[in-house]
C-alpha cells in the first residue's frame, strides 16, 4: 500500500514512463490482437448491413431503435469521467489525479469517437449523413433546429473537438520530453512536430497554464450539457418511459458512474501492462473507488426517484412500461441492471476490497455491464409496450449483426486506447514531478517544524 515515493528522482520518472512506449508486457499484444479481431467482426457486420439494409439487424415496426442507440449512449456516457478527472479535479487541486488523468482523458476522446460511429451505423442512409450538418448549400436547405437529434450531433462534435484539444495541450511538455529522449526514428519526428518547439521557458509555462485552465473551464459545462442533451432525445419525445423530467441529471450521473467504473478497469490493466506500479499506486486506486462508490449512490438515488415519479405520476402508459420492465420479456435484464448498478457497488464499501485488485476488476466490469443494460432498458421496453396497443405483441430481438457491431465497438475502443498508450506517454510526467515536489516540500516543512515525528507520519 505504498504511495508514490517522495524521493523518486525526476530522471527515473522520465525513464519509467518512456519505457512504457518501448516494451510493455506481452499482455499488451494479446489485448491488441483480440481488439483487432473484434473490430474485424464489427466491420464485417457493418459491410453486410450497409449493402443489404438495416433489416438484417432485425429492426421492425415498432422496434425502430435498438442496441445501436443504447450503445451510443453508453459510449457517450463513458466519456464523462475523463473530463471529471482531468478538468473538474484539476480545478479542485486534487493532486492524486495527476498520474491517472492522462489516460482518463484519452478514454474520453476515444469513447466519444466510438459513440460517433454508432450514429453512422444506426442511420438508414449513412451516405447522406451530411444532411444533418448546417452547411451552406445552393438550395438553402437547413437541418431542423428543433430536433434533439440535431442538438446531439452538435453537442458531441463540440465535446469531441474540445476533448482532443484538451488532451493534446496537456500533453505538450511530455511530448517535448519524448522528443528529447527517444532514439531517432518516425516517432521522434512525430514528437518533434507535436511538441510545437516546447523548451520549458518561463513564458511558455505561463502561457501553457493559462491555456490549459481555459480549456478545462470550457470543457466542464460541456460535459454536463452533452449528456443532458442525449437525455433530451428521450425526455423531449412523447413516449411513455422516455418522457421523464429527471432524465438529464439521471443520464449525467449514469455517465459519470460508468466512466468511473471504466477508469478502474483501465487503471488495473494499464498498471500491469505498462509496469506503472510505482505511479498508479493503490492509494490512488482507493480514491477512485471511493469516488465511484459515491457516484453509484447518486445514480441509485436518481434511479429510484425515476421509478417513484413514474409510479406515483398517474400516467398509466408510463406506469405500464415500468411494470413491463419488471415482469415482461425484459425482466431478466432489468433486474440484472438494478443489481449490478445498485447492489454490486456496496462491495466497494468495504475497506479491504477498496484496494483488492482482482475483486475491483470484476466489480468494475459488472458495474459497466449494469450501466450498458441500463441504457438498453431505457431504449427498448418503450417500443414493446408504447402507447399503441396494436404494437404490444411484437417482440423483436436484436440479430447477431447488431450484437456483432456492439461487440466490435469495444474492440475498436480498446484498439484506439491501447495504441494511444503505446505511442504517447499515458502517465503525465511533468505533473507527477510536480506532485512529488509538492509532497516532498510539505514533508520538509513538517520536519522543519518538528511536527512530523509527533504526528507519527515519518514512515518513509
Amino acid at each position, binding site marked *: 500500500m505504498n504511495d508514490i515515493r517522495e524521493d523518486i528522482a525526476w530522471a527515473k520518472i522520465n525513464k519509467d514512463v518512456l519505457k512504457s512506449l518501448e516494451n510493455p508486457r506481452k499482455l499488451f499484444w494479446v489485448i491488441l490482437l483480440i481488439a483487432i479481431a473484434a473490430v474485424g467482426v464489427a466491420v464485417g457486420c457493418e459491410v453486410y448491413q450497409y449493402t*443489404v*439494409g*438495416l*433489416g438484417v439487424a*432485425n*429492426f*421492425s*415496426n*415498432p*422496434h*425502430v*431503435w435498438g442496441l445501436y442507440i443504447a450503445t451510443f449512449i453508453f459510449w457517450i456516457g463513458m466519456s464523462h469521467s475523463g473530463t471529471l478527472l482531468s478538468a473538474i479535479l484539476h480545478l479542485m487541486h486534487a493532486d492524486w489525479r495527476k498520474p491517472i488523468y492522462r489516460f482518463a482523458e484519452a478514454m474520453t476522446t476515444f469513447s466519444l469517437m466510438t459513440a460517433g460511429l454508432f450514429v453512422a451505423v*444506426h*442511420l*438508414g*442512409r*449513412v451516405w*447522406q*449523413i451530411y*444532411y*444533418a450538418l448546417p452547411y451552406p448549400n445552393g438550395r*438553402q*436547405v*437547413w*437541418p*431542423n433546429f*428543433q*430536433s*434533439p*437529434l*440535431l442538438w446531439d*450531433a452538435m453537442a458531441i462534435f463540440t465535446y469531441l473537438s474540445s476533448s482532443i484539444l484538451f488532451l493534446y495541450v496537456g500533453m505538450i511538455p511530455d511530448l517535448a520530453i519524448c522528443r528529447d529522449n527517444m532514439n531517432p526514428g518516425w516517432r521522434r519526428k512525430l514528437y518533434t512536430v507535436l511538441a510545437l518547439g516546447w523548451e520549458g521557458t518561463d513564458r511558455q509555462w505561463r502561457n501553457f497554464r493559462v491555456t490549459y485552465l481555459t480549456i478545462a473551464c470550457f470543457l466542464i459545462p460541456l460535459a454536463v450539457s452533452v449528456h443532458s442533451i442525449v437525455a433530451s*432525445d428521450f425526455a*423531449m*419525445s*412523447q*413516449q411513455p418511459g422516455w418522457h421523464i423530467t429527471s432524465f438529464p441529471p439521471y443520464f449525467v450521473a449514469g455517465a459519470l458512474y460508468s466512466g468511473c467504473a471504466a477508469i478502474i478497469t483501465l487503471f488495473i490493466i494499464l498498471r500491469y501492462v505498462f509496469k506503472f506500479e510505482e505511479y498508479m499506486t493503490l492509494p490512488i486506486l482507493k480514491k477512485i473507488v471511493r469516488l465511484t462508490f459515491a457516484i453509484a449512490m447518486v445514480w441509485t438515488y436518481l434511479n429510484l426517484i425515476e421509478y417513484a415519479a413514474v409510479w406515483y405520476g398517474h400516467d398509466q402508459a408510463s406506469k405500464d412500461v415500468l411494470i413491463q420492465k419488471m415482469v415482461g420479456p425484459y425482466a431478466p435484464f432489468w433486474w440484472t441492471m438494478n443489481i449490478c448498478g445498485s447492489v454490486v457497488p456496496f462491495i466497494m464499501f468495504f475497506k479491504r476490497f477498496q484496494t483488492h485488485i482482482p475483486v475491483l476488476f470484476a466489480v468494475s466490469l459488472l458495474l459497466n455491464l449494469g450501466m450498458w443494460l441500463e441504457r438498453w432498458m431505457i431504449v427498448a421496453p418503450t*417500443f414493446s409496450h*408504447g*402507447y*399503441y*396497443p*396494436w*404494437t404490444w405483441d*411484437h417482440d*423483436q430481438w436484436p440479430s447477431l449483426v447488431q450484437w456483432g457491431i456492439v461487440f466490435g465497438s469495444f474492440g475498436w475502443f480498446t484498439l484506439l486506447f491501447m495504441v494511444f498508450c503505446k505511442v504517447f506517454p499515458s502517465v503525465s510526467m511533468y505533473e507527477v514531478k510536480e506532485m512529488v515536489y509538492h509532497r516532498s516540500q510539505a514533508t520538509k516543512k513538517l520536519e522543519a517544524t518538528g511536527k512530523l515525528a509527533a504526528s507519527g507520519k515519518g514512515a518513509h
Partner: protein
Amino acid sequence: MSVTSLLENYSEFRHFHPVDDVPHNPYKWAMSIDLDACSGCNACSVACYAENNLPVVGREGFAHGQAMHWMRIERYWDEDGREFPDQGAQFLPMMCQQCEAAPCETVCPVGATNHTPDGINSQIYNRCIGSRYCSANCPYKVRYFNWYDYPTTDNVWPAEMNQQLNPDVTVRGKGVMEKCTFCIQRVTVAKNNAKNEGRLIHDGDVQTACQQACPTSAISFGNLVDPESKVYKQWKAQQVELDKDAQIKDKEEGGSELRGYRIFEELRPYPSVMYLERVRESAV
C-alpha cells in the same frame, strides 16, 4: 430561406399551434371512418398497396414486423369469455393520422417530414437520412421504414406485376421512412384540374384509394374547410373539432349517443382522422 431571411422573419417560420395561426385555406384534408360499417375485409389495405407501390415483404418479413402496410386493419378480439369461432372481434383501419401538431415533424433532424398548407404531413424521401426518430416518436406507429432495398429485391413485385406499378408514385429506396400520404398524387391531379377550370375542388372530385375500395363506404375523405363536404358535415354532426384535445359534446340533445372520436386526442397531436365508434349489439 437564407440566414438573413430566417433571422429577420423568424415569426413567419415559427408557430405554436398549426391550427391557430395558419388557418387552412382553401383546403384542409381530413377523414372520417365509420367503424360500424367496417367489416375488416382488408380491401382498403390492398388498394393502398396497389395505388402507392407498397412493397410486398412476404411471409418472413411480415413475421418480423417489417410489413409496409400504410393502411392496416387492426383486429382486437372481444374478451367476453367466448371462444373462437364464436368470439367476436373489432376492426380498426389505421393509417397516418396526418396530425396537425405532429410529433414526428419536430424531431426529424433534417426536416424531411413537414406540414403542407393543406394540412397533410408530408414526407420527403430524398431528404430522409433514416434516423427513425419520427417513428420512435409516433404514438400510432404508422410510419414504415425501408429496411431493405425493396425495388431491387426479388418477389417484391413479381414480374407480371411490374406493369401494375403506379407511374404517379415513386418507389422508395433503401433506408428511408414512408407513410400514408392521403393519396397526395390524386389530390394533386384534382387540384390541377380544378385550377384549369378556375374553381376549387368539389367534394367527391378526389377519392383516396382506400375510400374507393371500401365496399361498405366506411371511409370518407374530403376538405374540412368546405361546409358542403361530407367530412365537414360528419365532423360537425359528431361535434368533433380539429383544434381540441378533448371534445366537449352536447350532453343535452342525445349528446351521449354521438359516436365520433379521435385516437389519442389527449396527447395533443390534433389528428385529422375521426373515427365513429362501433354500435355494439349489447347497446342496441
